[in-house]
């Protein structure tokens, strides 16, 4: 039921976007839609956490992990929508963009959110695939939003690489269906059905299928070496879109991978998928931390940090046990913090109108609140105690020390390198003398509130997790 409402809300918002001429109307409807979506996803999450996984229609089903991700989408979606109103206003004031593009923006934003909701709630893998593809399509134009050559390039790479990846994923997905087709039942194949018929699945085939799925959706998740589109897209897209991309989309894709992991594990045992996840996770952390060390562009910096965090989660799921629990927590923290970081980065961009780290100096004087947020976000994301991510990283590594000590230690060292590199850049940006051309003072309160709220929530969650969410995480840990 909730999902239907969400769909309706977004469709309405989109339609208004299509047909309305008044900017404020569009904005209002988008915010309303995302608000409804958030509320509904909270309701759904509550339902799931108290009555267990449920499926409203044959097409949709929400399990605990799905519910968590729905919460993330809803919350960040709301924050981002609110933020983007101001953001776009500022951009129009600088007449970087016109009303037409604003319209486009909101239409695509709504579609994007909708697609993600559907992808996470879809009961059929193919349907999920379609939705993921839809996210690609809807974001392609958001990435090329500024219509500059570089953004065009980013969008093109995004489109091509993800399409290739997703086609591989499509292939992988279909390979899973052999089990069902052999048992005769075609028609709408749901995850549950696949899981039920896993016995008919040829183990070797399952392995191949998982590889295709992992590499395919892994492209979307941003595992190295399929991550290459990610920094380009994130650095070129408008900040709110980047926030959604790395805060939400990556997690959605990761969840899909995990769903396949469950099926594969049921077929060939967990070692196989875990080793793959660990390999990709470690590779991602390695590349991310090394590239961050001397990165010149702060939005790319954050993008690489997302890659690193995805790697950490992959490690968590790979290590299993306590690691999974920590990884799910990490997913939540990372999503919120990362989008907060991107939003504040967006504000910094508005102020300095450059994404070069070298160009940004003395942000603390220019944007006191935002740069404080940026700092806090940095400290959280790099897992400085007592932030929640510190705990999750500790748990993941602890889980790792038991099974794969060497890998864990390597990962730890890489995290240290990453911290140092990241710190170097952040300090360079926040402190120091600000150039005269930049005038001090925050842009607007509405650019501050969303990231503040996000950060605040992260901080709260890192010290207190509401029981219903805790149930969800526990349940999810059991299932994945």
């Amino acid at each position: 039921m909730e999902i239907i409402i969400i769909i309706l809300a977004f469709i309405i918002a989109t339609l208004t976007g299509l047909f309305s001429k008044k900017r404020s109307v569009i904005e209002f409807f988008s915010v309303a839609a995302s608000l409804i979506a958030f509320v509904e996803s909270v309701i759904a999450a509550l339902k799931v956490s108290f009555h267990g996984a449920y499926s409203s229609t044959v097409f949709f089903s929400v399990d605990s992990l799905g519910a968590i991700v729905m919460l993330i989408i809803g919350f960040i979606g709301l924050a981002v929508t609110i933020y983007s109103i101001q953001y776009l206003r500022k951009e129009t004031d600088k007449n970087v963009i016109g009303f037409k593009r604003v319209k486009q923006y909101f239409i695509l934003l709504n579609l994007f959110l909708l697609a993600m909701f559907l992808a996470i709630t879809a009961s059929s893998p193919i349907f999920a695939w379609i939705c993921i593809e839809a996210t690609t399509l809807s974001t392609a134009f958001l990435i090329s939003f500024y219509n500059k050559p570089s953004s065009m390039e980013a969008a093109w790479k995004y489109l091509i690489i993800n399409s290739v990846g997703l086609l591989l994923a499509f292939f992988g997905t279909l390979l899973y269906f052999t089990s069902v087709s052999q048992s005769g039942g075609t028609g709408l194949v749901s995850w549950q059905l696949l899981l039920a018929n896993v016995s008919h699945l040829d183990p070797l085939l399952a392995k191949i299928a998982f590889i295709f799925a992992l590499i395919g959706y892994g492209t979307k998740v941003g595992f190295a070496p399929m991550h290459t589109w990610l920094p380009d897209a994130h650095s070129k897209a408008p900040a709110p879109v980047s926030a959604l991309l790395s805060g939400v989309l990556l997690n959605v894709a990761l969840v899909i991978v995990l769903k396949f992991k469950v099926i594969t594990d049921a077929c060939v045992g967990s070692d196989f998928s875990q080793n793959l996840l660990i390999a990709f996770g470690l590779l991602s952390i390695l590349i991310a931390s090394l590239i961050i060390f001397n990165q010149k562009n702060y939005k790319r910096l954050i993008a690489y940090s997302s890659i690193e965090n995805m790697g950490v989660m992959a490690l968590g799921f790979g290590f299993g046990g306590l690691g999974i629990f920590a990884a799910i927590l990490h997913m939540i923290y990372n999503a919120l913090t990362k989008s907060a970081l991107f939003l504040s980065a967006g504000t910094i961009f508005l102020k300095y109108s450059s994404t070069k780290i070298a160009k940004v100096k003395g942000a603390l004087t220019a944007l006191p609140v935002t740069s404080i947020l940026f700092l806090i976000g940095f400290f959280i994301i790099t897992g400085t105690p007592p932030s929640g991510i510190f705990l999750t990283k500790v748990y993941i590594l602890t889980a790792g020390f038991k099974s794969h000590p060497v890998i864990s230690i390597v990962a730890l060292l890489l995290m240290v390198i990453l911290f140092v590199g990241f710190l170097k850049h952040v300090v360079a940006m926040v402190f120091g003398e600000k150039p005269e051309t930049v005038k001090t003072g925050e842009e607007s309160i509405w650019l501050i509130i969303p990231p503040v709220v996000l950060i605040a929530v992260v901080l709260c969650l890192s010290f207190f997790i509401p029981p219903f969410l805790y149930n969800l995480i526990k349940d999810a840990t059991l299932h994945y």
Partner: protein
Amino acid sequence: MGDFYILDPSTSSGRLRRIIFVLALIGFGTKAGIIPFHIWLPAAHPAAPSHVSALMSGVMIKAGIYMMIRIFLDILQPAPVWWGLTIIVIGAVSALLGVLYALTEHDIKKLLAYHSIENIGIILLGVGSALTFYSLNMPSLALLSLVAALFHTLNHAIFKSLLFLSAGSVINEVHTRNMEEYGGLIKYMPQTALFFLIGSMAISALPPFNGFFSEWLTFQSLFMGILRLQSYSQWVFIIAAGSLAFTGGLALACFVKAFGIIFLGRPRSSEVVHAKESSSFMQIGMGSLAALSLLFGIFSGYMVILLEKIGKSFTIFQNTGSLVSVFSGQNINIANGFSSASAPAIFALLFITILLVLFVIRYLVNKNQTIKIGATWDCGTDLTPRMEITAMGFAQSIVTIFKSILKPSIQHETEYHDAESRYIMKSKSVIFGVGDIYHSYLYRPMHKIINVLSTRAKNIQSGNINTYISYIFIALVIALLFVL
């Protein structure tokens, strides 16, 4: 969720615990400022305002110590011997090198920062020996060392804050942290000078101030170690005691330098002449701290008993016999008669004798003596501040002696009146620097390596989409081969 249940020995394997030990040592060591993870301390202190540095040095770096004590003595028990010995060695190194670097500094706050490192080292000596004794199952000795460590932690908090505050008020007046531009401040800010003197005496462990007694306890626990232990652990303790002894001497030298250069002699810059005594509010603050460091010294007996109670609160010391007994007159007695000292006695003795000597010599012997105020003997030429010894010059001999560690670099820059005849020089400036071996041998190479790697890694992101897709292709193929 925030509790340490992961580290519970029942759940965690030996390897895991070893890893945790090393990581915790590095992590909290960095926070506490042990060498070679100390580099942030001297960098951070000058940046921070003085009362903040006072807090930082007094309280913040103690958080690291607290966590170490908590984890090593409480959570990670039982611990192997080498843990304790490692900590002792680190402590010894930190103490000795900390004070050596302090000697080379003439930035007053950096100097104090390096002394924090030194004192952390001394504290770690206590902690380490506590750990060693406990794992060699001599709990009462362990308790003694722990008490020493705790006491020194407390004392360091007091006198270091005192020093930072007085240094801060000096900086406020003279508007520079460079000691070479101070001099003769004792005449302009006498109270501050007095407080700084007390702080210096306390930190260089001169009786009857508190620093002495905590260092005394630390020494005692090390001595007991030398007495009771065998083979290599005994040698570790010998080395530790030796380094502690040298540290004491060098700290004394360093604070003679600090006090002498800052407060004594003639002003070295015009700023000094306009210096005013710091505000009465500041004076109250510093005065109370100074009084505390004297009182904690005199009543060290009570303090020891108190701290021992605290130490007993650790689960491993629940029912441990005490080695310290305090008799009448605060007479602290270690290991029934191994050693004993009484703070009030020392204090009273000093006080009375000085007064007595003063009285006798001043008023009994030749009381109608006339005192003429003259100039310092100047060998005929009138003295300029440039003729006084500088902070650098004071430490020069020690730096030269330890040049193998400190790697001093001296470069002369000479300016001549005319390029042709290089006989009459206009000016000659000597720039003296200390090479930081951690940067040159530990941090810079690491940075280089990582830099190279990262530049390599950046080539992955070549910007060519075909390459990107080929990555995917290759990844796919490799993964498939991994299965098939």
